[in-house]
């Protein structure tokens, strides 16, 4: 098992009441597994639903991307800069 801290921002941070949530996942887990596990573990995040993307090491990651070796993982709700 690996323990992955997931950074939260904006509404996701408010919903979870935390800047970061740590998720336990098997070594071979992908971003898709993280998505399922995170929303199970923190049901309040359901309000941002499946519109969120994930970033691994500060780049957007596809669902198929493996998490082993990731140094930094973040949940990215729809952005509104500009």
């Amino acid at each position, binding site marked *: 098992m690996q323990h992955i801290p997931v950074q939260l921002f904006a509404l996701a941070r408010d919903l979870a009441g935390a800047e970061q949530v740590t998720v336990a996942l098997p070594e071979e887990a992908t971003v898709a597994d993280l998505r399922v596990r995170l929303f199970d573990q923190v049901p309040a995040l*359901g309000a941002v639903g499946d519109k969120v993307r994930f970033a691994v090491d500060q780049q957007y990651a596809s669902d198929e991307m493996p998490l082993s070796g990731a140094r930094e993982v973040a949940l990215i709700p729809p*952005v509104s800069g*500009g």
Partner: protein
Amino acid sequence: MEHSTEETIRVSLTENAIDTEAILASVASPRAGAVLLFVGTTREVTGDRVTESLDYSGYQEMALEEMQRLADRAAARWPLSRVAMEHRLGHVAIGEASVAIALSAPHRKEAFEAGEWLIDQLKESVPIWKRENWADGTCEWVHPGLSSSTETSH
């Protein structure tokens, strides 16, 4: 907070007022025939609601990386001389700039194309979020595509 891996591209985040003149000056180039500056500012009225102020929050390290990637892609796609992008973070009053993009290019057509592409892309992918502070005292994170901050998941 600033990120500049190439002298031709400068991306930055700031908690202070955006200095548009400095950003314009930073893209000056003797090879450029065209300089373009786009500034995004806070509107007072959106639909029928009155905004009192905004707060911008960012995933700062990634925001800088993403701005740099966008500028690199623009510089690969169009013959640009220099590019500068700055985004404001923190509390922003009505009428103040939240983002500025400046670039120089040999010809104006590519300057307009690249400028519009950069602001469109920034709004799609740079991890920065706006919180609207409405005049009625409520506030709300803006997440395009999510129906409301208070609705439950679908």
